[in-house]
């Protein structure tokens, strides 16, 4: 059944009807009890209350239930689009279409729970984006997208001031100035909602390496904000 990874620790959902509120076990003293977590937010956006329920939807979709397929699309496509816009903004929608075609082709033979489906979807998206860059004859760049200084001044200032940004702008601001590797890991963690362990499988690096990469990425972002971009 569904297993949510939080802080590297797996949490089993022993009650399927339990609303997913992954317990925050980190040692952060100011963590507010009951604060919404991202996994729960993803689930609730799709009107699902639990990972187990979502897993059942995945299973129904695999059997050809078109309502279930529709639900999966509505639930996961926003994150998929945002991930791809972070990687290749100009081709995000076309790539998302390719990803869904690929998923549709493999759905009948897919086996796994909702976490596995999410990981499969974003692994496919990552491969598609890499293929797309190869088709264009590009190599992965050392620097991902533009730096904060190269961002739209309004976006950069808004981010600095903590103002509300458009979703796409927020994604760009989040990964601006990071290396491609850091940006990829950050997008998979934050936008795709994957755990460090799941990301490690997708990018083909040890989990410890993924944690180091994400640590550096966050540190880099924090430094930018600390020094006013």
């Amino acid at each position, binding site marked *: 059944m569904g297993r949510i990874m939080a802080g590297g620790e797996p949490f089993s959902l022993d009650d399927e009807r339990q609303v997913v509120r992954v317990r925050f076990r980190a040692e952060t003293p100011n963590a507010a009890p009951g604060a919404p977590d991202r996994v729960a937010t993803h689930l609730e956006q799709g009107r699902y209350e639990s990972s187990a329920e979502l897993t059942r939807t995945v299973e129904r979709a695999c059997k050809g239930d078109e309502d279930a397929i529709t639900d999966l699309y509505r639930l996961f496509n926003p994150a998929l689009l945002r991930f791809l816009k972070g990687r290749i903004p100009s081709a995000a929608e076309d790539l998302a279409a390719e990803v869904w075609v690929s998923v549709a082709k493999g759905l009948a033979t897919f086996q796994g729970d909702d976490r596995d489906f999410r990981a499969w979807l974003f692994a496919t998206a990552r491969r598609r984006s890499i293929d797309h860059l190869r088709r264009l004859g590009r190599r992965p760049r050392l620097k991902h997208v533009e730096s904060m200084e190269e961002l739209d001044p309004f976006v950069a200032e808004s981010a600095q001031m903590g103002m509300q940004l458009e979703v796409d702008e*927020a994604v760009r601001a989040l990964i601006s100035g990071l290396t491609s590797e850091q940006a990829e890991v950050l997008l998979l963690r934050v936008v795709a909602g994957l755990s460090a362990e799941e990301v490690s499988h997708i990018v083909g690096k040890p989990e410890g390496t993924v944690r180091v990469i994400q*640590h550096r990425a*966050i540190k880099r972002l924090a430094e930018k904000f600390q020094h006013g971009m």
Partner: protein
Amino acid sequence: MDPISQEIIEALLSGKAPAGAFPEELAKVKSLIDRANAPASYTETTGAHHVVQAFRAAQGGAIPTGGRGKVLSKLLTAKAAAAAAAIALTGGAAAALTGVVPVSFHSNAHGALTSNAAQTNDSVTSTTDSTTSTTAAPDSTATTAFAGESQGMASGANLFGECTAYMAITRGSTTTTGVGSSTTLTGALASTNFQNLAKLAASQNTSVTSFCTTYLGAHKPGSQSANSSANANANADTHANAGGSGNAGGSGNAGGSGNAKGGNGGTHGSLSAQGTVSVSGGATVGSKPPVTGVPTSVPPVSVP
């Protein structure tokens, strides 16, 4: 800046702690993360039916392995829809001017338009891209019109037109370019019109070619009242602007503004008492000017 612990990083990335739980610089990162995970917008969640179609096609084994086949083209909805809309709206005029679809189809298209304008919409369904659709669109339209009139394959404009079409296609298919040629030949000859024509020829124990040769010989345009000057301007670039503008993602922005507005595109036919058909067509996709090369009239057709 204080060192950032792994726990704090994890709390930040998993979104399980409020912004107030972090130092100021991380709180701003947190706000960006939260914004990047904002609730889905409408455009991000539309287009699910294309995935369902892709799934159905996959079950039927219809999806090309490259993933860029028909289903993908459906997923890239807006572009295809814009092209299809342009084709549908300019259908008869554009296709006829390729030199492939005979003039008589215009009279059939006119009949379809006047009797049931909605039938022209059906022509879109067989299109997969703008190139092939230039021939497919009018074919289905004409089929609809002709089938209604051809129950007995009575003589008249339809039979004359069908024979003219048949002869033109079998004789001139190689003059068309690219994908259109083979598509036209196979698609047109497989149409109900030609099947009826074949039945009629068979009922007279002759081949379709002989039948049509005989029939056309007995109904030479020069002997009729109409003037059939061939003014076919075959340069109709029907897909020049068909891509439209704006968001074209099958993943949710298909309904985006400005896509595939038909504008003035359309086939307006008028059939005079002398059997002269005039077709005026022009496509306007979005705010772009009408497609160049689409003439405003086609040669008159004689009615035997």
